[in-house]
């Protein structure tokens, strides 16, 4: 089980650059102003171009090596420009553009609070809940 926040924005002249801006803004608000982000190409059937956003997590411990596969970068969310096929299916004006993103809530919560086991979020352990 996990939960996901989905975002969708459609308007005239929405660009990939706007998407980057919003995602970076979110990351800074959530992880702190010093966070370093990068975008890299990926694939989702409903966005084109598609991207995944990583934040720089660092390589300070053995667990950092493990969770970042030795790269220091950690995947946070998937996003992209809405594929024109999606607009076609819902009969939107083809001149519109937009972006979409999805963020795993548990994932970013675990990163923010240093939670190592996702099960802690579902067990209802009072000793865990009390800390928040």
């Amino acid at each position: 089980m996990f939960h996901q926040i989905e975002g969708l924005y459609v308007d005239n002249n929405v660009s990939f650059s706007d998407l980057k801006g919003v995602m970076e803004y979110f990351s800074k608000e959530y992880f702190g102003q010093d966070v370093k982000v990068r975008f890299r190409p990926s694939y989702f059937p409903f966005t084109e171009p598609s991207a995944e956003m990583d934040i720089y997590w660092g390589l300070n411990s053995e667990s950092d090596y493990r969770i970042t596969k030795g790269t220091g970068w950690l995947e946070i969310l998937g996003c992209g420009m809405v594929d024109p096929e999606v607009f076609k299916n819902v009969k939107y004006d083809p001149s519109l553009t937009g972006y979409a993103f999805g963020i795993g809530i548990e994932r970013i919560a675990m990163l923010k609070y240093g939670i190592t086991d996702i099960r802690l979020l579902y067990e209802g352990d009072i000793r865990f809940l009390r800390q928040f």
Partner: protein
Amino acid sequence: MKISRNWLSNFITSSKSDFELVDAFTQLGLECTSSKINSIDSKVIVGKVKSCTKHPNADRLNLCEVDTGSDLLQIVCGAPNVKENILVPVATLGSKIGDFEIKKTKIRGIESNGMICSEKELGISDNHEGIMVLDGTFKIGQTFSEALKLEQDTIFDFDITPNRGDCFSHLGVSRELAIIEGSHINLEKINYKAGEFKSEDAIKIKIENPSLCPRYSCRLIKNVKVKESPQWLKDRLNAIGQKSINNVVDIANYIMFDLGQPLHAFDYDKLNGKTISIRNAFENEEILCLNNENNKLDPEDIVISDSNGPVAIAGVIGGFDSQVDFNTKNILLESAVFDEISVRRTSKKYDYAKEASKRFERGVDFENTLYVLDKFTKLLVETTGGQASKDFVDVISKSKDTKSIQFDFNRCNKFLGIDLNQNEYDKLFKKLSINTKFDKSKFLCSIPSYRNDIEREVDLYEEIARVYGYNNIPIAQNFNNSYSSIIDNAKQINNDIRSILPSKGFYEHYSNSLYNDKVLKDFNSYETSEIINESSIDMKYMRNSLMPGLLAAVSFNEKRKVNHFKFFEIGRVHSLLKNYNKEEETLGTVWYGHNDNHWRNECKTDIYFAKGEILSILKNLKINNIHFKVNKSNFSNINIDIYSHKTCIGYLRQLDTKLSKKYDIKAPVVFSEISIDKILKNRIKDFKFKSISPYPSVKRDISILIKKDISYSKIIECIKSASDNLLIDTNIFDVYSGKELENNSKSLAISLTFMSDVKTLVDKDVENRVNSILDQLKEKFNIIQR
């Protein structure tokens, strides 16, 4: 998918480090990691075991003296095959084996100055049965990796996205590396001597359904010698995790990993009729496959068939009867393009997610089938001494036109938020090997035949973006589009609950919304929807109550000795009404245990306490006209239904012993479920404050004797109806039933508060009202005033 760096260098070389390449590939959309193979530490050297005696303090360990040329090392070794006078690889002090550094250590009291290694420890193979014993060609003191003549390599492990079928080979990855390097790849020119005979005399190809197989190329190669593969070929395949089988199969595999086109080799002499047809399978047709399994086919499957029946399932697996074995002399080699969707369906059905079908499913290069055959032939002729036919048989049933896509670079600039000119776009297209013509402010782009994924203009935007670099696209700093935040009432009440309940000491819980059938009838009798494709039997049904999840959390905490807590959960519960699945947003609450370990007094959790909390929560949420009714229930001995106006909005219950046992909880539990959807309707939307009277209130107490079975709520109802709105509050402050009273009576003491908005009340005003209240109570319940 594993890619060898040495192998890539057949196409293109790079001066970048492994780490830099991993980063560059990843930024280009090919996520990967890298690892080194055959990089044995230079401090691992060849040594000779001079003596080997039992360890004095351990049965299974031996004490060895190892001569490394310069030293005589004392080493403790646990391997069963260690003995005197053998040559072994020795990791001397300071060498690294994997992530582990060899240090001087004491094992059961005896000093050990190194480690004698197994093949697995050195990363040479998976063999870990004992230490590696070397033959006489090794010399004492030699650096082991030099003596072995192992080729060091880097293996990149790629996670290729499903749209990039063209990257499933060293050639494909080389093309991407060429983008990174800004250079071009070298495709080997194929040269070898072919024979005089012709394939077209030996085999006829019939494609019955062009959409299943747009292209089928093949070639006959005679007089091959099937045997073990040469070492270089074994090493290449081994490096990317593939097992060696025989030279023919290995070369076919090698070519697939090299160029991305899966090949299949038939034993030509085992084919019947010398005509091959590519067709749909017949109903109930069967084939014995290479893995010795007999499969029943259906008409959705594509088969390669000779005059007797199927000899292979196209793109998925070969047939047993036509396979190449060590007696095979003549080979028919197939290089074809099959329908992607059919191959996917078939491979999924038979569960053969193999390297070949993986590539067909994602689309192979239509224009490449002959080059692939040629390269295979060359390798086969070189390694097996066979002779290739003069010609190819190449049947194109459905030709593929070069795709041309119009590309408006101004639109692309706007779409991506960049500002590149025509020249810059031209350069990016060159990197992608996309040929362009420029006409009336638009590019006309010809897409390379291997890029099956590029079909629309927007696909080219992505290509431009990734080659330009996602991270070079500017980050918008201001968002001048207007928007408003929309929170509907349904969401707002959840926010309110999440602020009110924690302030009363509740913790929020999230539990799984899918249950097994064992808990479905514990809290209500609603039928609920079943999941068709459940992932486990415990997640077969949509929940019809929040309680099983909450009680599981209660039990979890009880076992961890937390003795007093309260939970709530907001979630949807389901009920199946005449084939319609009703979802209802619900608030579940649980009170658990006693805080009895407090210096002042015990805080008891019981149904009365919980009822008070429920009332206060609902008041905080501005829910109108709340009242409670004790009702019999099949689900608990103590059950109170909660009402707002005339609607039953939920219940409050005590967990009875039967369910306590079932959920493995010992201490008392009170719980409640309230329908958020229902209370939403009775929520006061525009709450306004009531002005406060400037006049004092007057209090009167009454004491009555009344029958036990009459509930307090009925009494209050009666009191209220007997008075007017000057009665502003009632409170019960004493309840007594004892021996002195009649058997079925109880004594109640109730305080009544009166107040007026317009004047100070005098005795008479209050007396009148109290009297009429008492009269009414006498009349209705036959009370005795005390």
